[in-house]
């Protein structure tokens, strides 16, 4: 299942946040959205998954989601969005409880995603007992449980410290390598974008427009921490963004 964004534009009151965004999200690829703060990248992600309605244009789903897919467009949030009163297992079960399936089938799915995210030992822990990185892994497990066609990741690693971020990036690469998934990955961190993106979409400052789409051909597994070629890509992206970011930073916020 592919996604196509067709001339998306959006306003919040008087403020124009997105202008004329057209983009293809091909299946099996990770598309990174980068841009200066306030450029509307998170808004765009909410539009893609139907949590907000675009002011203009439309988001199109090309083809059907696979049969076994329970929730085609599934989010991973920056603040994890785990229910603090449910255990790790309970949080994952939450995403499955509204679907018709036997208790055994549900337990199988939960056991499978816990194993894939290396959380099996922590099934009965409460979120307050977990570190930030573990919480985000629970959120990733919950997203995997509904077998999404497209994962919509909203700055998933931004609330974590840099070491944890590296570890989780490795985890994500591992997950993708074993079973390629489609994802839209919003971040302001260029290092994440060049590590995980097959396609990097650079947005301008508000109103967000597509400045450039950079395609990276190096397979994900060959991209390592501190790689010189990646460093070069990152420099290039930063060159594109630098002035925009400076200008965005100097803007007054009218809320």
């Amino acid at each position, binding site marked *: 299942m592919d996604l196509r964004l067709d001339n998306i534009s959006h306003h919040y009151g008087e403020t124009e946040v997105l202008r004329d965004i057209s983009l293809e999200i091909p299946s099996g690829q990770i598309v990174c959205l980068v841009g200066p703060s306030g450029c509307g990248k998170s808004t765009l992600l909410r539009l893609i998954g139907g949590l907000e309605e675009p002011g203009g244009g439309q988001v199109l789903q090309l083809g059907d989601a696979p049969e076994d897919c329970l*929730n085609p467009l599934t*989010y991973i949030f920056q603040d994890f969005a785990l229910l603090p*009163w449910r255990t790790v297992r309970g949080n994952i079960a*939450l995403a499955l409880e509204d679907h018709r399936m036997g208790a055994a089938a549900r337990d199988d799915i939960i056991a499978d995603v816990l194993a894939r995210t290396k959380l099996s030992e922590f099934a009965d822990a409460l979120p*307050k007992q977990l570190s930030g990185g573990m919480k985000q892994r629970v959120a990733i497990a919950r997203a995997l449980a509904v077998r999404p066609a497209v994962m919509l990741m909203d700055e998933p690693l931004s609330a974590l410290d840099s070491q944890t971020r590296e570890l989780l990036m490795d985890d994500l690469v591992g997950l993708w390598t074993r079973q390629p998934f489609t994802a839209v990955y919003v971040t302001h961190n260029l290092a994440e974008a060049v590590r995980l993106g097959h396609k990097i979409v650079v947005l301008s400052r508000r109103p967000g427009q597509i400045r450039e789409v950079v395609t990276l051909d190096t397979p994900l597994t060959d991209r390592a921490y501190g790689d010189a070629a990646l460093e070069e890509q990152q420099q290039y992206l930063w060159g594109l963004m630098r002035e925009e970011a400076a200008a965005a930073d100097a803007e007054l916020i009218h809320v």
Partner: protein
Amino acid sequence: MSESEMKQAKKVTFRGGGFITQRKRGVGVVVFVLLILLAEWGTRSGVISALTLPRPSDVAATFGELYASGLLFKHLIPSLTRLVIGASMGAVIGISVGVLIGLFSLARAGLVPLVAAIFPIPKIALLPLFVIWFGIDEASKYALIAFGTFTPTVVAAYAAVDNVDRSLIRMGQSFGLGWWSIVSKIVLPGAMPGILSGLRVSLTIAIILLVAAEMLGAEYGIGAYILEAGSLYDLERLFAGVVILSLLGVAVSSAIAALERRVLRWRV
């Protein structure tokens, strides 16, 4: 010898203390005991006249008699029944209406002004009205207690629903959960801390109203007992009744604390 060693070494003084609530066990009991001992000493030595304050030991003796004669439970059981029935009616209706206000803009627009209008009415002033509506029997007492418990519970419940983390609701929607699943699995558990702390207040108000209701036409009940003692200026019995009320308040408060520890174990 380097320059730094020549300089005098001074310890950096600690200035980060205070402003932290710590759990101190038993201090509350000590305050009670000291006050009672002070009253006992004052009444025995004559500094406090017997008309001003009854001697605590006499109050204890009266309480003992009350227990021995079996009258204690004769008064306590009807009171507890009224409290339990009235307060649970008020709390259940209050929580339901509060959650409705929290969930539906229409309910909020229609009911919040109404709640604001009935909140400041002293419910005791409406007792005659309740007697006319529900009769002199138990029903009017239940109604009074329920009505008094209702208003603070409503306000606490809708504020608690308002305070539920919107990002969790968004998350529920993003996973395609149904409306009822979002309400029962995300909104209600998320509102629980606020609802329980609201119940603390409204159940205390229920005890106050219990006494008020019993002062008007009840044969048995702690309120009736206190009223009778008061009209005879029997301060020992009056105080024995007041002690029962205080104990009831402490019991309700610790019951809610225990419930919070159980239900809100997930809280950080």
